[in-house]
């Protein structure tokens, strides 16, 4: 164990590069999976014949599989379909597929938490389904889902570490590179990246609990 040398400026700088990959992969995945999850959750709720049932079935399959398996599918499966991707794109695709299914479920239960009278009232005031959804139901549902959504986003940030297995150059992978050169650095590396992950996720968690107090 050698904390002083392990945490030289060079190594810390290298870890911060990894942290940056973790953060931008997370941010892109959060943005995309939020939008897709919103659409899928609405489709599932809207009870369109066949489409809602099929969407619901696919969502249930995906969210009951381990993310690690979906990462493998994306990484080994996409080239089979003739799509060549690097590990960053593969990680983002896998995270978006998995997290949008999780978010779709949150969205659905959020919409279900809005009393049915709201939809009936909006419809009887002459709005069509989409207008009622957009102007009446969604604003209320989003408020109710904020805590669940944010803790899902925290999970997403933590889950990016799983993409290390397909050589995403994220924080964990960079730490592994550093300690593979000198095994004395292993313990300091794990402690420092645990701290870095903690700081990022804890800040997000703080926002979540603040919003929970405000709207919950």
């Amino acid at each position, binding site marked *: 164990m050698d904390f002083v040398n392990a945490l030289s400026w060079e190594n810390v700088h290298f870890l911060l590069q990894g942290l940056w990959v973790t953060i931008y992969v997370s941010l892109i995945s959060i943005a995309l999976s939020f939008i897709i999850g919103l659409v899928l959750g609405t489709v599932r709720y809207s009870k369109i014949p066949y489409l809602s049932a099929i969407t619901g079935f696919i969502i249930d399959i995906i969210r*009951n*599989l381990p993310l690690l398996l979906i990462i493998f599918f994306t990484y*080994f499966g996409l080239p089979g379909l003739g799509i060549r991707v690097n590990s960053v794109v593969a990680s983002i695709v896998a995270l978006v597929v998995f997290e949008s299914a999780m978010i779709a479920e949150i969205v659905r*239960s959020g919409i279900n938490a809005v009393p049915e009278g709201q939809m009936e009232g909006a419809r009887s005031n002459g709005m069509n389904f989409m207008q009622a959804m957009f102007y009446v139901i969604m604003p209320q549902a989003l408020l109710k889902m904020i805590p669940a959504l944010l803790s899902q986003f*925290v999970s997403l940030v933590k889950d990016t570490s799983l993409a290390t297995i397909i050589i995403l150059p994220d924080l*964990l992978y960079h730490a592994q590179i550093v300690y593979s050169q000198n095994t004395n650095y292993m*313990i300091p590396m*794990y402690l420092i990246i645990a701290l870095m*992950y903690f700081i990022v996720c804890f800040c997000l968690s703080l926002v979540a609990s603040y919003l929970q107090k405000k709207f919950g």
Partner: protein
Amino acid sequence: MWNLFIDNWDTFLIGFGNTVLCSVIALIFSLIIGSGFAILETVPSKLWRTVARIYIELFRNIPLLVIAMIFYLVIPQFLFKVNGFTAGTIGLTLYTSAFIAETIRSGIGAVGDGQMEGARSNGITYWQAMRYVILPQAFRIVIPPLGNQFVNLIKNSSVLAFVAGFDLMYQGDVIASSTFQTIPTYIIVGIFYLILTLPLSYYMQSLEQK
């Protein structure tokens, strides 16, 4: 795909067995530890509340993979030797216990202060009130979210693959790299996971709707 399963069914089943074993052990211990910290979070003493808060926030905000790796690589250097299965299961237990503590704590919060005040003013002690009045009600409230945590636990047990825990995912990896039939292998692995998680999560959905 069927042939692939017939040829390697024993390897798949060993993995499936280890995944089930790890999930059950982790579930039992994380329920015990999680309930303990949830109760600690509600005791009058500020010191114990802070201890519980630190434990929960620490394990909730560090990736499970990093926790498992610390138990697999770091602990053996100081304390005791662990194999991959044990290290992974310990990591999974501690990680899940933080989420379970958080779930049960919100259940205790949902019971309402009046119940505790009523119980106390009937002359029973804090711990008796907790045991006979608050916790039975809290557990009923938290059963659906606890079930979802259990589904997450089963899925998260795939982290054992990183620490050579011989779970379903690890065995799938072994088969995929020896047969080169990557996608069919992972489809079979996926079906095994769904056998565990899908019935549970549908059951929890039906409980939630009641």
